[in-house]
C-alpha cells in the first residue's frame, strides 16, 4: 500500500530531471529537535518539492512531532526512544514497504544542509553507488566542522580501521548524511545496527557487496538542541563499535534470519 503518489509535476525545473521520475523520500531522525526540525523540512522542500519527508520522532518529549507535522512532513512517532539506529531503521522499513526508489537520510538537528543533497544523490542517480555518504573529511581541506579533539581522533581511528577492513578508503564513518538506492534501502530495512549504527553499517554494506561512495560535504554547527555524545558515552561508543566490527568479521551468514533480532 502506498501512502501517496509523489506529485512529480509539482517539481520546478531546477529539480534534477532524473529525480522527477522516481519516488524519493527523505528520512529524518529527530529526538527533541522542535527548534530545528521545521527549518530542515522547509529546506528539504526547497531542494526538491517532490521529495516526501518522513520524520522519525524517537520518543521526543518536546513538540518535535507537532512541529514536523506543521511543516508538512509525515511523522512516524515511536512510542519510546529506540536510539538512533532503531529510529533510522524505522524510516528505512517505511521506505522499503512504500516502494521508494531512492532515500536520503538527513539529521533533524539541522547539521546536514539539504542544499548539498544534489551532490550526495549524484552517484546514486548515475548508478555508480548503492549508498553514498556525505563526508566531512573527504575533500582533504580543513573542514568548517568543529568538534572536540578526542572526538576527531575517534572518528579518524574508526575511519582508518574500517578502511583497512573494507579495502577502500573511507574518511567519515560516522556521518548520517546519506543517499541510498533500492538495494541500500532493502539492506538497511532488513538489518541495521541498534546504537551508534553508522560504522558497523559501513562494514556491513561492503560485506553484502554493495557499492559505497563518499562525497565531500560541509556540515553545520548544531542549530538547536544538544548533542547526545558525551565523554562517557564516547568511550562506550568506541568499545561497542570496535567489538561489533571485529566480532562481525567472524560471521558467515551476514544476513540475520527472519526474527532473530
Amino acid at each position, binding site marked *: 500500500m502506498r501512502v501517496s503518489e509523489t506529485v512529480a509535476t509539482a517539481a520546478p525545473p531546477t529539480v534534477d530531471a532524473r529525480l522527477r521520475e522516481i519516488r524519493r523520500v527523505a528520512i529524518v531522525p529527530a529526538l527533541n529537535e522542535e527548534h530545528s526540525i521545521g527549518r530542515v523540512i522547509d529546506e528539504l522542500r526547497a531542494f526538491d518539492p517532490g521529495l516526501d519527508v518522513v520524520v522519525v520522532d524517537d520518543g521526543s518529549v518536546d513538540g518535535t512531532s507537532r512541529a514536523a507535522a506543521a511543516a508538512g512532513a509525515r511523522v512516524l512517532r515511536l*512510542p519510546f526512544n529506540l536510539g538512533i539506529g532503531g529510529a533510522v531503521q524505522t524510516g528505512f522499513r517505511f521506505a522499503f514497504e512504500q516502494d521508494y526508489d531512492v532515500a536520503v537520510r538527513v539529521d533533524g538537528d539541522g547539521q546536514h544542509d539539504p542544499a548539498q543533497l544534489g551532490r550526495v544523490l549524484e552517484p546514486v542517480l548515475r548508478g555508480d553507488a548503492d549508498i553514498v555518504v556525505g563526508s566531512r573529511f573527504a575533500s582533504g581541506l580543513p573542514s568548517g566542522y568543529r568538534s572536540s579533539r578526542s572526538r576527531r581522533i575517534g572518528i579518524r581511528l574508526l575511519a582508518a580501521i574500517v578502511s583497512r577492513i573494507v579495502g577502500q578508503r573511507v574518511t567519515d564513518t560516522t556521518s548520517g548524511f546519506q543517499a541510498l538506492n533500492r538495494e541500500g534501502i532493502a539492506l538497511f530495512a532488513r538489518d541495521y545496527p541498534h546504537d551508534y549504527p553508522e560504522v558497523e553499517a559501513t562494514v556491513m554494506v561492503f560485506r553484502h557487496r554493495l557499492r559505497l561512495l563518499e562525497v565531500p560535504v560541509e556540515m553545520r554547527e548544531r542549530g538547536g538542541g544538544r548533542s547526545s555524545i558525551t565523554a562517557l558515552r564516547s568511550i562506550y561508543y568506541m568499545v561497542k563499535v570496535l*567489538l*561489533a566490527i571485529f*566480532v562481525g568479521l567472524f560471521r558467515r551468514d551476514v544476513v*540475520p534470519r527472519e526474527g*532473530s533480532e
Partner: protein
Amino acid sequence: MTPLSVSIAGAIASFVLVLVVLELIRSRRLRERYALLWLATGIVLTVLSAWREGLNTIAGWLGVRSYPPAVLFAVGILFILAVLLHYSTVISRLSDQNVLLAQRLALLEQELHEAN
C-alpha cells in the same frame, strides 16, 4: 601465594567465559550492549588469575594474608552483582516499554474499530 593449580583453573574458566560471550555475539544471540559487562568480568578474572604476583599484591592491600584467591571470589562476586543490577534496570525498562506498547495497541485497535 596462590596455588598454581588454582591460578590455571581460574584463568582457563575465565577465558572460556570470554570466548562463550564472543561466540554469543557472533551468532547474534547476545547484543554488544549487554555483553560488555560480561566481557569485562571475563577479562578481569582472567588477568587476576594468570597474574599471580598481582593477585598477591592486591590481596596484601586488602589484608588478605592466608589465601589470596579469596580476592578472585570477591572480584567475581562484585562483577556478578554489577551484571545482575544492570539486568534489573534493563528488565524494568523493558516492562515499562511493554506496558506502553500494550496501551498503544489497545488505543490503536479501538481507533481502527471506530473507523470501520
